């Protein structure tokens, strides 16, 4: 399983990349592999505001649907426009081209609720047991 250093993670297998006031959000390699072929991603609209842990998006494969929760509170800054036509980017490049959205970070203190790469790896190992 590909777990990238420098990113933050949630227990729901979302990753977050922090660039100053902007957080980029996607799903992890573990998540895309568990889902299988992604067929559809339902994203929020730009400027929609979410609280940490609110449902923010949905990702679907042929036989599964998963809700995606906001890893941090804030307003949506940008959504990945490619996913509408090419949802398989989530499978092909989950940490880059297959990102879901970018949001403005409202409260940096919330970052401490996220896992770093090391803790996420340990979390994945605990799931495998």
């Amino acid at each position, binding site marked *: 399983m590909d777990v990238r250093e420098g990113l933050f993670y949630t227990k729901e297998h979302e990753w977050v990349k922090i660039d100053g006031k902007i957080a980029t959000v996607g799903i992890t390699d573990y998540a895309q592999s568990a889902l299988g072929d992604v067929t559809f991603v339902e994203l929020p609209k730009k400027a929609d505001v979410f609280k940490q842990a609110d449902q923010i998006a949905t990702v679907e494969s*042929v036989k599964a649907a998963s809700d995606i929760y906001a890893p941090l509170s804030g307003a949506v800054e940008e959504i990945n426009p490619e996913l509408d036509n090419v949802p*398989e980017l989530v499978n092909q490049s989950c940490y880059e081209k297959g990102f879901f959205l970018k949001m403005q970070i409202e409260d940096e203190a919330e970052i401490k609720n996220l896992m770093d790469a090391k803790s996420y790896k340990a979390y994945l190992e605990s799931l495998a047991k």
Partner: protein
Amino acid sequence: MKLIFEKSIDSRTGFKLPECDVDIKFNLSEKYLRKSQAELPEVSELDVVRHFSELAKRNFSVDSNFYPLGSCTMKYNPKFTERVANFEGFTDLHGLLPQVLGASMLCQGALQVVYDVQKLLCEITGMKAFTTQPLAGAHGELTGAMLIAAYHKDKKHKRKYVIVPDSSHGTNPASAAIAGYEIITVPTDKTGCMDFEEFKSKLNENVAAVMLTCPNTLGIFNFRIKDICDEAHKVDALVYYDGANLNAILGKARPGDIGFDIVHINLHKTFATPHGGGGPGAGPVGVSEKLVGYLPIPRVVKRSDATYALSYNRSKSLGYMAAFFGNFSVILKTYAYIMMLGKDGLTEVSETAVLNANYLKEKLKKYFQLDYDRICMHEFVISAVSQLKNNIHAIDIAKYLIDKGIHPPTVYFPLIVKEAMMVEPTETESKQTLDEFIDVMVEIAELAEHNPQALKDAPVTTCVGRLDEAKAARDLNLRWQK
């Protein structure tokens, strides 16, 4: 194979309409008329007959194939019930007749069918009264959810939650949710039953009802079922019996005796009416004494002069669940089936369904993992997890079965068993058919070890190979266009 639309030839016709025998000048204003014509195929009757005959050949069906699709009770559909349902005295009756003054005398036979079937279903399930209105199992569940709502509203209860076990059919939480309830899911314990302590801890006076299947989707009869009913009743929550698995307990146990308040029955499962490629089914709902007043209107009643009529005058009724009396011809076939089998025949149905399932389970558990190894009822769930090491999944096993002329079991359900294969042989299958199935499953287990590619390549005997479902969902093409 071409679509019927692709076989269209300009100006070809397949049917002659009656001559227009009236002389009328057409004068509807343009603004009410359709501009574009509906592009229906232009084909001959023989074109249509050949087309759909060819399509028919591309289906597995109970008449041609063993069909152990778990939870669906794909038993043999006897031919005589089809003939009964096709009597013109039934097929040509308008459903509104009994609503029209004087016209209920034109449909006494049909009203009697509804009345009699309700009584028979009461005796079979131990319920006090039945409605035949629900049009399918899930529609029965929705009716049940409406009854639950009507009951609590009448009692001035404010109830918000419905409890379901995690092994339940997806329709249970979906039906309760669409009726406005929030869902509490209780996990399954090691015995394969809903965790009783967990259930008790979730139960309180905000709970409107508990929805259960018994035997459950693992084919296990919950021996604490009465305790569950009793606990629920302590807080005046209702207990709902999803009758999808009634085929296991005919003449053996009755939900009404155990303490259930609401029951739906899938007539297309237990009572052998054909599944029709996904419908029409029928999902009549029975209730205990305290819920009779809430049943949908109209009710079919027998008057003192032995004639049948409709009754609407029920102040507590939840209203109309369907326009008429449910899927009448399905109800009719059920009546004919119950009449032919009778008391002993129906009891033997369950005995044999359970015998067949246990026989298969015993033979197959040596080759496939069985998470809950105990006596099962009419179905059981095995798993392909032992085959995973060779990258063989339940779906691969399913596809190979198709090549062997066997419809696969239900796969990937219930969700709580990994790589699940849910097998329900039904009572109408002979020992020889079961033995052939066992042989193929043993062959599959061996192939998984020594030649997994053979399973990966299946099916090879069908008109198409494995289809790209991801493409279907991504590049949505839901209709033909010129």
